[in-house]
């Protein structure tokens, strides 16, 4: 039996510490990982907890991230609760196996600390890795501060392992800006946290020799489509379970999470949509914009996949102008978040003016003042009743001004 870890009601933890304690409290059976900056401390802390007797489980040291995720797939198919952590290049090396895990419906939890992808090499935060896993069939939850990194990781197990979901889940936090920034975190005690997550319920475990099963079979034209469609349906249906888990979490902690988070949206005329720590920075900018007479709000999808299409459209139904902020270089289009939001509002017959902004690549600082500039652009678009600013702009990029699709072009 694992030792109880004494925690204060208020800890000062960075996002990595928060995520590693959530993994410890979930009493994971197998963690297989290959540490990489900036998520290294998650793996390092976890192996310390194990060595010090705070975890009953196995820690598998592997020779690469491809092997880490492969070991996770094996352990999960065998019938255990399984988790890992990674970032950036490690995530990239896992991608092939991410699709295997979701296709086999294995409820693995991966705590991702988001970091830029090389080349050029960069250890700092952007959403390149999150976007790389976008279509991999995993649920992707977003945490904007260390408290949320803790909360989302506990919720991730409960969502992944729900009988109606059985899909792998990532929790995402910004490299350094969340992972290495210590803030106040209010953890649950070990017993309460474990009780919330619950005992692991096996489904078709390979180690049940009386009921042999096949994982990772080959299906060609006759069945592949049906399998993938069913997997997609599981993701499309998962918001019900995500909301149920969030409701139970609120009951327990008082902390409320929604599929779409928002700030000042009740009467907002312009809105920034962003994921990650800049959602919080933009909230301050929205408050300041209101002092300058701009009715500003901020919106964040709590899950990037499944994308909360209807809730996003509903939250934005009364705004005149929207800016979607992508912390990723889209390399040939406007931006994944921009396109998701544009698709969502279009689907429900809304016609707000929408523009895209690229920001924060490789850890580039994004301030309240930068977000305020975006609100000023939005106010111009709202005032004109049509788009008068470029379709795509770049925040805090040095050099001559870069933008695409200026009005009239």
């Amino acid at each position, binding site marked *: 039996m694992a030792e109880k870890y004494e925690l204060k009601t*208020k800890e*000062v933890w*960075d996002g990595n510490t928060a995520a590693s304690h959530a993994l410890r409290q979930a009493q994971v059976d197998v963690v297989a990982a290959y540490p990489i*900056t900036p998520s290294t401390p998650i793996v390092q802390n976890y192996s310390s907890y194990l060595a010090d007797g705070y975890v009953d489980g196995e820690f598998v040291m592997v020779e690469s991230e491809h092997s880490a995720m492969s070991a996770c797939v094996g352990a999960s198919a065998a019938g255990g609760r399984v988790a890992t952590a990674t970032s950036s290049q490690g995530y990239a090396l896992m991608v092939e196996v991410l699709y295997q895990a979701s296709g086999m419906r294995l409820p693995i939890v991966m705590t991702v600390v988001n970091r830029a992808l090389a080349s050029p090499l960069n*250890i700092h935060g952007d959403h390149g890795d999150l976007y790389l896993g976008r279509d991999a069939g995993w649920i992707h939850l977003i945490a904007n*501060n260390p408290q949320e990194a803790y909360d989302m990781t506990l919720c991730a197990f409960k969502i992944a392992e729900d009988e109606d979901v059985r899909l792998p889940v990532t929790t995402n936090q*910004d490299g*350094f*800006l*969340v992972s*290495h*920034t*210590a*803030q*106040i975190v209010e953890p649950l005690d070990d017993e309460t946290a474990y009780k919330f997550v619950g005992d692991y319920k096996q489904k078709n475990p390979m180690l049940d020799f009386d009921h042999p099963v096949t994982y990772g079979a080959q299906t060609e034209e006759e069945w592949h489509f049906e399998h993938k469609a069913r997997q997609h349906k599981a993701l499309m249906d998962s918001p019900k379970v995500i909301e149920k888990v969030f409701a139970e979490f609120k009951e327990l902690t008082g902390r409320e999470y929604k599929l779409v988070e928002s700030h000042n949206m009740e009467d907002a005329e312009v809105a920034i949509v962003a994921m990650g*720590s*800049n959602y*919080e*920075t933009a*909230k*301050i900018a929205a408050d300041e914009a209101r002092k300058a007479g701009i009715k500003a709000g901020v919106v964040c999808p709590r899950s990037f996949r499944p994308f909360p299409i209807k809730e996003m459209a509903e939250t934005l139904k009364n705004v005149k102008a929207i800016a979607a902020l992508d912390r990723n270089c889209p390399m040939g289009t406007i931006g994944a978040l921009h396109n998701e939001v544009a698709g969502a509002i279009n689907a429900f017959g809304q016609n707000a003016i929408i523009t895209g902004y690229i920001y924060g690549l490789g850890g580039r*600082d*994004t*301030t*309240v003042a*930068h977000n305020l500039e975006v609100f000023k652009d939005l106010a111009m678009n709202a005032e004109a009743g049509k788009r008068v600013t470029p379709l795509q702009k770049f925040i805090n990029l040095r050099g001559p001004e870069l933008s695409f699709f200026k009005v009239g072009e």
Partner: protein
Amino acid sequence: MQLYVRWHSRAGQGAVTGAKALAEVMSQQGKYVQAYSVYGAEKRGAPMMAFDKISDEPINDHSKGINPDYILVIDPSLVFNPEILNDTHENTKFIVTTHMSKEELLAMPQAAHLKGKNLFVVDAIKISQEDIGRAMPNTPILAAFIKISEVVSPESFLDTMKVILSKFPQKIIDGNIKAMTRAMEEVK
């Protein structure tokens, strides 16, 4: 109340630990905190900065830049880098580690940028060498900051530090307490 502190250090001198300790001390006082650092490549000995944001309200700003109310310089050679003045304001207080007196330091041409500044000196390197047994100037500088800023009483500061240091052997804890007490007396 909002208070911003920037630490100038070399990687390996404990600025990150110091900044996190200050965050812990202030959280015990009911404040909201953020402690973080800015690295280039992570090389031991390379100049780096760590930051504390302390506030009565929850801290939502995740941008890195601050206008520091206090600059803590924990490596004696970094005192001579004019960049320690970046983003400071007229009331910013500078607490620096040096073996020199304030007058001797200010007489050096390389320290001209500190003339007219609100400057405090303490020999955190010597104190840590003598009382802790190695050059680990982070806790003495933190103690000097507590003394100058009066954000918390010396007694409750030391009580919190005892808890933070509790994972270390008793000898290290005692050495740190002695070093911090001395830094609070000797900072000028």
